[in-house]
């Protein structure tokens, strides 16, 4: 039965502390960029997320880039946002992804298109991320499409996950929303990057109270900071991000390579604290346009070798 499971699924279900990272596909048709990033991360992570037109900027499609990663032996997590595709396209792409041997997937709402380079486009949002999760579950477990009696002879085998942001509002509702995602079939969760450990711990407490940590594997997001400027930018300009002043103060005295070194240090410390929290099943390292930092972080956080 294990042969049917993805590497990520096996690692999480074995109870090992999982490590995933993120790879942003290029704004071009260059497959080599994807291969380079993939090979860089290969030995250091259990799976690599490939974003789906993140911040609504057109990039190589997540499924295509994920298939390229798979072709060089890197296990991908392809992402699907609800912003750009209707239920026909989403279900169709799920079949295609499964046919290409892609297993892990992340269901997301998607950043509003006004943030990207196609702000004049229509958005879709035919179904939301919760409905997408259920759709994946129904396709995988029952071989059924939305609202159709037809049963597929070869259903897709997808290991679905969802994102959750413990720092977004309404804060009191976030654990309830996680529960709903679990009910909808989410098997793993990747959170928004954690800088505010206190707030994250509060969220985890709520999560544990509802017993959700036993029903879904939660990977806490982390991001290494490159500079104080980057920290401030994330605090002020990125929706749903919580960067405490204490973190910014730590970055402020440093510039250039020293700042990056401090950013990596903070990231490693965060990972070590997260490992100690009950219910945290792994980390998801989002080193935005800095994938080279991941090997150092994984190694120094004591997460090698990967199972």
């Amino acid at each position, binding site marked *: 039965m294990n042969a049917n499971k993805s590497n990520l699924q096996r690692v999480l279900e074995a109870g090992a502390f999982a490590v995933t990272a993120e790879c942003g596909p290029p704004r071009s048709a260059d497959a080599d960029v994807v291969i380079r990033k993939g090979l860089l991360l290969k030995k250091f992570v259990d799976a690599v997320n490939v974003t789906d037109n993140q911040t609504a900027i057109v990039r190589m499609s997540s499924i295509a880039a994920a298939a390229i990663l798979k072709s060089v032996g890197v296990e991908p997590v392809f992402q699907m946002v609800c912003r750009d595709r209707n239920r026909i396209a989403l279900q169709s792409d799920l079949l295609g992804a499964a046919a290409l041997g892609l297993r892990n997937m992340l269901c997301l709402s998607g950043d509003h298109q006004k943030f990207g380079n196609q702000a004049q486009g229509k958005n879709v949002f035919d179904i939301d991320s919760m409905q997408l999760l259920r759709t994946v579950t129904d396709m995988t477990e029952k071989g059924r499409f939305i609202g159709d009696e037809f049963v597929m002879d070869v259903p897709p085998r997808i290991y679905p996950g969802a994102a959750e942001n413990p720092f977004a*509002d309404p804060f009191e509702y976030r654990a309830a929303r996680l529960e709903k995602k679990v009910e909808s079939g989410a098997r793993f969760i990747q959170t928004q990057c954690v800088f505010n450990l206190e707030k994250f711990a509060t969220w985890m407490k709520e999560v544990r109270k509802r017993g959700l940590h036993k029903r879904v594997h939660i990977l806490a997001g982390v991001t290494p900071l490159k500079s104080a400027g980057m920290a401030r930018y994330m605090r002020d300009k990125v929706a749903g991000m919580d960067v405490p002043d204490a973190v910014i103060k730590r970055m402020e005295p440093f510039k250039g390579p020293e700042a990056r070194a401090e950013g990596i240090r903070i990231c490693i410390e965060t990972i070590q604290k997260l490992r100690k929290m009950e219910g945290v099943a792994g980390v998801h390292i989002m080193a935005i346009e800095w994938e080279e930092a991941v090997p150092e972080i994984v190694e120094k956080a004591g997460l090698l070798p990967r199972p």
Partner: protein
Amino acid sequence: MIVGERKPFGEIQGLLGGYNNILLVGCGTCVKVCFTGGDKEVAVLASQLRLAGAKGKKKAAIDEMTVERQCEIEFVDEVAKKFKGHDVIMSMACGAGVQMLAERFPDTPVVPAVNTTFLGLLQKQGHFVENCQGCGTCVLGAFGGICPVSRCAKSLFNGPCGGSQGGKCEIGGDTPCAWQQIIDRLTKLKQLDNLKAHVPPKNWSTARHGGPRKLIREDNIL
């Protein structure tokens, strides 16, 4: 009510360029209420067009009239009384009114002066907000009377996205997060548990996605 905004003046001049005999028609209902296309706005636009044209060699003649509603033929027929073979009719009504005029006067070009924007309400003095998208399957009862289709920028049905912060939507412009509002309202009504149930994919075929819609009331036809 339907809300719209007057087109930029330059665009209006462009639409009327080359015409000498203009009939400007206002509407006394929705667009009057949002200070866009009622009798006052017709008078102001006509005056502006005359002032703008004053320096030119040829001055276009501009006639003005306003009817109760441009979406009903009974009222649009009154325009015929003032219509004297004008070269062009410019309507200050919403898109529906413009099209009714075009149907009534098929031999005359009919152009819009207004960009029709949304279905909404007057929240407070001078503030009009969108709150209905005419989706054809109203589910306001489940969400404490707050519409996730029109007021959530992503039309989500199962709770807020991760971009909700301080009660505001990630798109900015002070837009409230509809889901924060829904949660607050249902909490007040002690109905927050309503949100536990999974809301399945919406039937969009009753919305514009299913094609242009119509309503036929046989019981009202003689």
